[in-house]
């Protein structure tokens, strides 16, 4: 362990820890924009500059390995002045339209501008990038908000490996681009949206979220992704019971902040009116079991809106449905033996569900005829 002091506080960290991580994990917040714990340090935003005892010039904490006996100052008049200047430079190239911005409340630049009291730039305002790219159904890239922190390009390269985007051009006019500024769909993008996840400002936004509400109005629900067996943690942000976007969260054990395209953007089925919400029984069976009198009459309220064959089903309650299934299964086992029954379960179910299902098949039914789609 390495011992160092942060603002006079003695702390201990593992060798190889950088000063920024050391500070953050000890509850000392050093402003940072380009740093992300899962990405290699970049050192481009220059906000995390700290003073080191015995060194004349401040250094970026994100690229500074903690050393034994190091005395780090994270707040000082000089550092505050410098951070104010840097934020001032940032907002000279970033519209401060926070009032109507969808990132309002969760924007890192806004946070620091607030912390350091920068309400507008003292320089001449000049936008270097004005492109607005909404060429795909997943997310929108609004270049005027981009601060070129490079998190999106790094996540695409280091975490995802899609290498769809890279900073193109040089200097003030450089921008994040697909090859030849093609549409995202023509690039190697896999639309995992992890770039959207790590964007600290409003440059990358989920398409469905835009204009749908302010961050503090949203309800966050954390759950496990149902798409496959990996078990990624997902945080759904919803307003008035409708999901606006999905995001990862750092505490998720399996995936951290990162998701795949299905987890991040494949949730629109949730609110789909065609989704089954109640058990349905085929009309002829329902008639045979005495659940309905007239096999040809239509139900009063239709459970479907559009599907052809609506009239072939009858909605029932869960108890009835389970009774029917159990009865049919038992009948089959009695008549043809347990191996006449086979079970196929789904990756969309949880691990626990799958476990119980095979238990049901093996112990309840008495067959090993059990399979799972994720086995393939």
């Amino acid at each position, binding site marked *: 362990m390495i011992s160092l002091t942060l603002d006079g506080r003695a702390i201990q960290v593992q060798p190889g820890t950088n000063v920024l991580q050391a500070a953050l994990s000890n509850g000392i917040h050093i402003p940072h924009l380009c740093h992300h714990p899962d990405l290699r340090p970049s050192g481009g935003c220059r906000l995390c500059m700290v003073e080191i005892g015995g060194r004349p010039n401040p250094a970026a904490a994100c*690229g500074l390995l903690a050393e034994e006996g190091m005395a780090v100052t994270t707040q000082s008049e000089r550092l505050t002045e410098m951070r104010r*200047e840097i934020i001032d*430079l940032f907002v000279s190239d970033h519209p401060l339209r926070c009032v109507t911005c969808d990132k309002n409340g969760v924007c890192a630049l806004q946070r620091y501008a607030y912390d350091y009291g920068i309400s507008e730039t003292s320089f*001449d305002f000049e936008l270097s990038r004005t492109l607005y790219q909404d060429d795909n159904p997943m997310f929108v890239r609004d270049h005027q908000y981009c601060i*070129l922190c490079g998190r999106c390009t790094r996540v695409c390269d280091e975490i995802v490996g899609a290498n769809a985007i890279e900073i193109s*051009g040089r200097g003030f006019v450089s921008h994040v681009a697909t090859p030849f500024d093609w549409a995202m769909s023509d690039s190697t993008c896999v639309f995992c949206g992890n770039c959207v996840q790590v964007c600290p400002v409003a440059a990358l936004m989920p398409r469905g979220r835009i204009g749908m509400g302010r961050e503090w109005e949203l309800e966050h629900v954390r759950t496990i992704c149902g798409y496959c067996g990996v078990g990624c943690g997902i945080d759904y942000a919803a307003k008035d019971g409708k999901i606006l976007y999905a995001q990862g969260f750092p505490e998720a054990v399996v995936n951290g902040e990162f998701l795949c395209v299905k987890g991040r953007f494949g949730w629109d089925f949730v609110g789909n009116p065609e989704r089954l919400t109640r058990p349905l029984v085929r009309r002829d069976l329902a008639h045979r079991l005495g659940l309905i009198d007239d096999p040809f009459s239509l139900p009063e309220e239709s459970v479907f809106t559009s599907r052809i064959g609506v009239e072939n089903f009858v909605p029932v309650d869960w108890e009835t449905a389970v009774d029917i299934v159990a009865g049919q299964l038992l009948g089959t086992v009695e008549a043809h033996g347990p191996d006449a029954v086979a079970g196929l379960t789904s990756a969309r179910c949880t691990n626990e569900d799958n476990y119980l299902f095979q238990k049901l098949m093996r112990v309840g039914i008495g067959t090993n005829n059990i399979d799972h789609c994720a086995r393939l």
Partner: protein
Amino acid sequence: MSTVIRIGTSTCGQAAGAESVVSAVNAYVDRRQVPVTVQRTGCLGACHNEPLVEVTDNDVAVLYGPVSPERVSLVLDRHFGGGGGRWVDPSWILSRRPDHDDFPFLARQTKVTTRLCGVIDPMSLDDYLANGGYMALRDALRMPPEKVIAAVKDSRLRGRGGAGFSTGTKWEITRRQPASPKFLICNADEGDPGAFMNRTMIEGDPHRVLEGMLIAAWAIGASKGYLYVRAEYPLAVKALRNAIRQAAEYGVTGKNILGSGLDFEFVIKEGAGAFVCGEETALMHSIEGQRGTPSMRPPYPSVAGLWGYPTNINNVESFASIPSILLHGPAWFAALGTEQSGGTKAFALTGAVRASGLVEVPLGTPLRTLVEEIGGGCKSDRPVKAVQLGGPSGGCVPAELLDTRIDYEDLRRTGAIMGSGGMVVVDDTTCMVDFARYFLTFTQDESCGKCVPCRVGTRKMLGILTKICHGQGTHQDLERLTRLCETVRTGSLCGLGTTAPNPVLTTMRYFEREYVAHVDAGLCPAGICSMRPGTSTRAA
């Protein structure tokens, strides 16, 4: 000894028309059937007199310049008779002595790294060998690497790229790294506008650089050496390719060099035009085939450089100094310079000066010697106003401080830097605000865009300077500019950004009155700035 006619055909010579001079000389030789050797050499440094022609015959050596093709037969007739002794303008004769002691431009110099530039044929290995070439390498390979490093440390050679870090110490750090393989990089990405030291050295004497690198490879234990050469230097690349091929044939590259067990190969990497690639981490990214953006140090390249392996990066001039150190001994080299830094430094002396070109002087020489004795003052006969050192990363030293010694520490005290060797002299027709603005235009253009202080900060600095040059500046702008300079200087990620404010800071420090005149009176004292918005500043 037979008669040799030497013609300087470096880039500078070619720009002055040296190729047609070579043709004219060859035609003359063919016509007159005179028994001479016509030799194409590098640049002697006296670029202001290009094209240079030197005729050496037994102990006589006459240096002519500038020699246009029309003057060729006039000049050569003096040596080979004929023409009825036509009159040759005495001003064309620059020197009549083999050591050029009668030519003030060359007489005041001490040539170490450029000793053979303009003297030998850069395409000829034999020429280099005849002048002691690869002797130092032979000596070095018989010494243990530690002793080579000790010699370089004792010589007090410091990084000639401008930072001034002890070369020997850098080698030692790289040698101590356990990781293998180790790489060597020769930084020839001479991006400073107004600098051509590396170009002259490579074009004039490429083998010296290779020899320096080979000695470094032995000392450090490196197995591969990259020569990163600027894209704008096609002749230098040609000279290096030829030299590497010759070195391979001669047996000083490849496997088991001269029986020492050292394996080493050279790779030439042509830059693609990015000033920031002179910064070592950016340069390494460029070699790796990435965008040439810098990354944070530490880790320093000596510890984790190219692809994470220990990498030693030195400037061309540092490498070119190495053979002399080993041949003449570290004490000799150290004695040339000052207490802290040994040896000589080459400068590209340009601008308003009468005699411009490549100049090599011992460290510790006062700036005045270069500007007045070697450079001969301003060609306009106007007073020298300032000397700009180190290009866009450097600063201006005003005429009052011309007695400053050329030394890393002394120059830093003035606010300027040693830099890689660009030295631009300006007379009083130059507006210092416009001059600072010129450098900012360059830096702003060359900023890679990775860090904010440089990407946005230099642009805002340029904006303020442009306002001042257009007569719209205020005192608040000056104050804002000063504060911004401090932010960019301390806040930037790499050397490009941290040094970008230097031209502004030094001109503000020494020529504050000019800034104030622009702001208060709306006047450009030098009459350069148009003082009107939306117009080109230099209204030629």
